[in-house]
């Protein structure tokens, strides 16, 4: 049951294509404008990103909540020789990631100014936006890979061109590491399409066609899945493939870090849902113990490593490793709550960690250091800034009532049913999250400010407005996540149904009255 798109008033308008192409056009425009008129350059960049954001928000409002299939589908033949089409669509799984992308970019364009070469910077940023949008919207394996991979280029230049002291190292590591993973996925994608040809009847890279029609032999499916998994795990990043992330995050300019944490990492986790689980349900279930274990190790490991960091940005980067571990945990637990939680966590982590990076960037702007040891007593001189940081931090810790909790809790409670012990261990991550963030907060914000920090400038109106948007999202989502969850869930349930149909797996469903606790859960 492939939905042909919800009924919407502007049905003829190619919404999704516009989401990809508007930033591209913006990038071209920015590139062509003269560097001598920086205000036009900025205006053009802003206009295209705001337009994209506007379209995404409009799409959100027009999204049919009860429809579980793909909406706003846009499909055109592209490379017929290989059965590749320009096939875009959005469902509950990608919806909020698309909106997040659409909203995040204008915010960072407004909120963060590069120190030099603004024109180039903006052009790359817009290319990046197009790439990310494309990745989330693609329903064609080739198309997905194309966007997935192309994202590396603008990010490479953003880190390398506007980053900090070890930027080239970090950018190169990011690029090569991710590309290394993609190498496997490309072969996997092609093999998937080629092997699916027998069942589908013709060569196609169309995700839906392959997923719905093709069945792979168990061992084949596993190999294919693993080839995808390597690339996605690097992108997530899943322990032990995560070490590019701290470097990339630390060295990236603020906007780069925000985007990287906000949406780029989600390409990996999103990919696991969209391609791992959907295409190879049997293999995904087969690999479940491995990925659950890695996810849990990642949660603990990332948190522990974060605790001992001396660089504030690096600390936040490691916290991402831990947070994304939760998402992977939820993904492989394959229950309605866990998957919904995973998707929600993708968005929420994007918001809260994005905001954290923004704030850390502001600290750097003021103090020109990210070393925790150099910072002290900021709360005394900039209480509002500290308060903003605190709210965002609590969201990251997963305090209920803030958005970070929603995804994390759903993931855990959902995963508990199918991955009991992993979840119990993973839940200790919430202790560690409090530990490393509060410790860092204490060292940076508490205490008596020394000379270097006593001149710390309070948050400005522009910064305040920017952070305010994030905090508003954090609070709203934390207190009233229902609008989000009810859009995510139908698609997630559809995915689970697909998995069940394919594998005979039975997801725990509405366990009211059922008692699963018969296998010795007693002691503590």
């Amino acid at each position, binding site marked *: 049951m492939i939905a042909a798109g919800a009924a919407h008033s502007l049905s003829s308008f190619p919404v999704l294509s516009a989401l990809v192409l508007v930033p591209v056009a913006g990038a071209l425009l920015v590139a062509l404008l003269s560097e001598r008129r920086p205000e036009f350059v900025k205006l053009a960049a802003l206009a295209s990103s705001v337009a994209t954001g506007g379209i995404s928000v409009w799409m959100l409002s027009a999204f049919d909540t009860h429809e579980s299939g793909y909406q706003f589908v846009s499909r055109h033949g592209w*490379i017929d020789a290989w059965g590749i089409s320009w096939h875009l669509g959005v469902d509950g799984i990608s919806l909020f990631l698309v909106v997040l992308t659409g909203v995040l970019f204008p915010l960072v364009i407004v909120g963060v100014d590069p120190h030099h070469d603004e024109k180039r910077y903006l052009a790359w940023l817009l290319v990046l936006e197009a790439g990310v949008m494309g990745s989330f919207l693609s329903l064609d394996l080739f198309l997905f890979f194309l966007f997935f991979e192309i994202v590396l280029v603008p990010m490479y230049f953003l880190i390398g061109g506007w980053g900090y002291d070890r930027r080239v190292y970090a950018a190169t590591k990011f690029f090569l590491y991710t590309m290394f993973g993609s190498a496997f996925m490309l072969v996997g994608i092609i093999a998937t399409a080629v092997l699916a040809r027998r069942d589908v009847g013709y060569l196609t890279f169309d995700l839906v066609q392959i997923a719905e029609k093709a069945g792979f032999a168990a061992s084949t499916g596993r190999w294919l899945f693993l080839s995808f998994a390597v690339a996605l795990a690097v992108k997530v990043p899943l322990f032990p493939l995560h070490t590019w992330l701290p470097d990339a995050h630390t060295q990236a300019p603020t906007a780069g870090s925000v985007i990287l944490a906000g949406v780029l990492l989600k390409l990996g986790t999103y990919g696991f849902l969209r391609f791992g689980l959907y295409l190879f349900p049997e293999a995904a279930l087969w690999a479940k113990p491995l990925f659950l274990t890695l996810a849990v190790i990642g949660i603990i490991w990332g948190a522990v490593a974060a605790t001992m960091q001396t660089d504030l940005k690096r600390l936040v980067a490691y916290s991402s490793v831990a947070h994304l571990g939760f998402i992977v945990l939820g993904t492989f637990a394959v229950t309605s709550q866990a998957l919904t939680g995973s998707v929600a966590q993708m968005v929420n982590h994007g918001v809260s960690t994005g905001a954290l990076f923004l704030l850390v960037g502001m600290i750097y702007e003021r103090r020109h250091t990210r070393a925790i040891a150099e910072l002290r007593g900021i709360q005394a001189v900039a209480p509002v800034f500290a308060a903003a940081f605190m709210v965002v931090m609590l969201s990251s810790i997963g305090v209920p009532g803030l958005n970070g909790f929603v995804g994390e809790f759903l993931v855990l409670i959902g995963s508990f049913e199918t991955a009991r012990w992993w979840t119990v261990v993973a839940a200790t991550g919430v202790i560690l999250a409090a530990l490393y963030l509060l410790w860092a907060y204490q060292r940076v914000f508490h205490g008596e400010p020394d000379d270097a920090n006593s001149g710390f400038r309070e948050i400005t109106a522009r910064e305040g407005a920017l952070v305010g948007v994030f905090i508003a999202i954090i609070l709203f989502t934390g207190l009233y996540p229902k609008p989000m969850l009810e859009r995510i869930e139908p698609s997630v349930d559809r995915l689970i149904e697909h998995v069940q149909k394919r594998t005979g797996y039975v997801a725990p469903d509405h366990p009211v009255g059922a008692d699963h606790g018969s296998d010795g859960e007693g002691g503590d």
Partner: protein
Amino acid sequence: MGPLAFTPPAVEFTDVLPLLIWLGTLCAVLLLGALVPAVLRGRYALVTFASAVAVAVQQAMKWSDLGSEPTGTALSDAVAVDRFAVLATMVIAVALGLVAPVLHDHLARRDSDGPEPWAMFLTAAMGAQIMVSANDLLVLFLGLETLSLSLYVLAASNRRNARSQEAGLKYFILGGFSSAFFLYGIALVYGATGSTNLTTVATRLQGSVSLAGDDALLLLGIGLLLVGLGFKVSAVPFHAWTPDVYQGAPSPVTAFMASAGKVAAFAALLRLLTTALERRADDWRPVVWALALLTVFVGSVMAVVQTDVKRMLAFSSVSHAGFVLVGVEAASHGAPGLSSSMTYLLIYTVLVIGSFSVVTVVAGDSDDATSLSDFRGLARRRPALALGFTVLLLAQAGMPATSGFIAKFGVINSAVEAHSYVLAVAAMVGAVIAAFLYLRIMVSMWLEDADDGDAPRVPRATGAVIAVAVAFTLFVGVFPGWLLDAGNLVDLFRPVAAPQG
């Protein structure tokens, strides 16, 4: 004795029209250049370019003609007439057409205005064309020598530059050495089958009963043929000349070597292996497999530590050769390796000429400012040039939305179709290693500041070539359909299909 029955072979000139066009141009260039130098002075590039266009157009027409006619051979089976040859010839023509403007600017800097370099380029193109259509090992050998001798001379042609001379001598000695092996291979194949004609060899191998005992000779012959062509395509371990020669030779010559030279050698290799030696695929496939793997990896790995851009691109071209060999390996399974290899070569031709054109520009008048530090801060000095080079480099790295990705995708696709998964994965991993080198160049251009603000002069013709290359790279990256459709129409003349003894 009776008079020997001699029937002169039928000669259909249209089958060798590209050769005739270039031969005519060659004569015109030489004669006019020698006799009335004023007529053509400064216009050799134009004439050469025109000849390349003429060949391309003629071949395009032939392409559509071949749609209705069956493929076959001409000139007593010495030449194959098929779309494979047509496509390869077109690539060679494209290479010649693209290099000509660059060479023009390059020679202008060297104050060299004689017709001789142009004549050498034309003969090289002819040699290459002969190779791609040769249906006889002897013809192939002669084409190879025509191409090689021209390139030896061209490599050594910058006589003010000791490196050019060294490159020429090294290329010559090693080239002669490998030609000898190739020739020995021909001899052994001849000894085993009694013919040097690919069609005949193929038919004899089909009825291989009578050849049971000659396996060893045949197989060693195949091995030596692989050595000869492997040398030309710079497959590891026959690649050692490549970096030295590419670095030392004048940049436009390097561009032509890396494009037309490779296309010719690969076309010959593909034709040889998949027509004449198709029956022995099980024997040579593992060798190609190993060569492909070695080539991709050694090329990529060694590129990592280079400090000279030309040398980097040389090693990268080794790595690319490995990729094409992946396609060749796939072709042994009857997978779409043939078309994907040729598509790869076509795309790579444009890429590599574009890249070396940039190098030519940056290298300056003495053609030796090619170290990585000479590219430092290029983005600030010449942003458009740097951007163009970046696109070309990204394409070489196989980034999507560029032609390079289409090329790699095609080859990997055919490898997967052939179930050569290990090779496909290994090649992709090799590509990742190779990506490091492109990143290094980009780092130099974009992320490091220049020591001095000297912006290299971009001659108009070279600039146009770079622009065309970049445009093509991006266009094919986004709209590859037509190219792939064309590639899928590529077919080889096969004796099985032709009822011929």
